[in-house]
């Protein structure tokens, strides 16, 4: 894989409770030249990002160490015990320090109301599992979009140009059904390939 020597390595935080899927997403991201940190829960993700889950009794104060670990993108499974990927997305978008980090949701189930809900909450992409290399190749624009925004606000430094700009989901907004429970009684479909909602 051709890599430009001057390009910085972007850091992705991957969140999934499945060992297998963590292994897979890690490999997909590393193959695509990302630096990867994987965690197995939403609360561990927040901990890593420097935010504490307010329900935790043993919450410690945010250490400055955490703020040095820059995360350029969060990719999270939707269905996880405890904090779902949607809950994590909400917490990230509610946080002044984290809201600019692009968030991608992964799910094994193709449920339009779920997808819409995530996109409306600020998710940048929704990947249907199993995630493939072609999906991962769509992450860069979201990272660059955000990093360019930061560069405009900060000092002038050489950066990469955006080759494509992706738009947020707009258009038809279907009625969002309440699908908070992951083991809901919906007939799952076995899809032959990934569907990426842009």
């Amino acid at each position, binding site marked *: 894989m051709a890599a430009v020597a001057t390009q910085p390595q972007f850091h992705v935080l991957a969140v999934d409770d*499945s*060992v*297998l*899927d963590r*292994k*897979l997403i890690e*490999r*997909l991201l*590393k*193959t695509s030249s990302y630096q990867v940190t994987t965690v197995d829960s939403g609360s561990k993700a927040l901990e890593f990002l420097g935010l504490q889950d307010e329900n935790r009794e043993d919450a410690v104060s945010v250490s400055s160490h955490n703020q040095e670990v820059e995360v350029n993108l969060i990719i999270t499974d939707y*269905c996880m015990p405890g904090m779902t990927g949607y809950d994590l997305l909400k917490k990230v978008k509610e946080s002044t320090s984290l809201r600019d980090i692009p968030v991608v949701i992964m799910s*094994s189930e193709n449920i339009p109301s779920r997808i819409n809900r995530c996109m409306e909450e600020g998710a940048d992409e929704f990947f249907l*599992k*199993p995630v*493939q*290399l072609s999906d991962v190749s769509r992450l860069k624009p979201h990272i660059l979009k955000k990093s360019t925004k930061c560069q405009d606000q900060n000092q002038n430094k050489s950066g990469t140009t955006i080759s494509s700009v992706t738009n947020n989901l707009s258009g038809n907004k279907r009625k969002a059904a309440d699908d908070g429970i*992951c*083991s809901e*009684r919906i*007939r*799952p479909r*076995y899809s*032959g*390939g990934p569907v990426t909602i842009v």
Partner: protein
Amino acid sequence: MASTQIKAQLNDLLNSMFAMDFLDEQFKQLQMLEDGSCPGFISEVITIFCDDAERILSLITELLSKPVVDFEKVDAYVHQLKGSSSSVGAKRVALVCIKFRNVCQENDKEGCMATLYEIRREFDELNKKFRTMLQLEQQIQALDSKR
């Protein structure tokens, strides 16, 4: 020299697994991810999958043996197994998982027992083929490293 023969054997095994839907396109995606920098990737993923599937099938068996079945828990485990079998490209196992979720949702204990038996059969067959695959790969590596 001798590794060529074993490579052919491995190839035949893989081709037949694809032809009979034991494996699908997703497995080919995994093969693409294994390269010089990560040579043990496939065997690691297969091992994780098989260990996890065994664990889940045992748990489901236990849940179904109870006088009152917690179908929600069973469904949650089947959902997990469906996820990991899809991730690894284990098509036939994934398809039976879908069937399983349907009988679960109908709270059909008999149906669940029958489908569990079916998943067991599919998984055992797949597991055997995976083990053969890994053995052949190990043999190939051992022979190639001697050159």
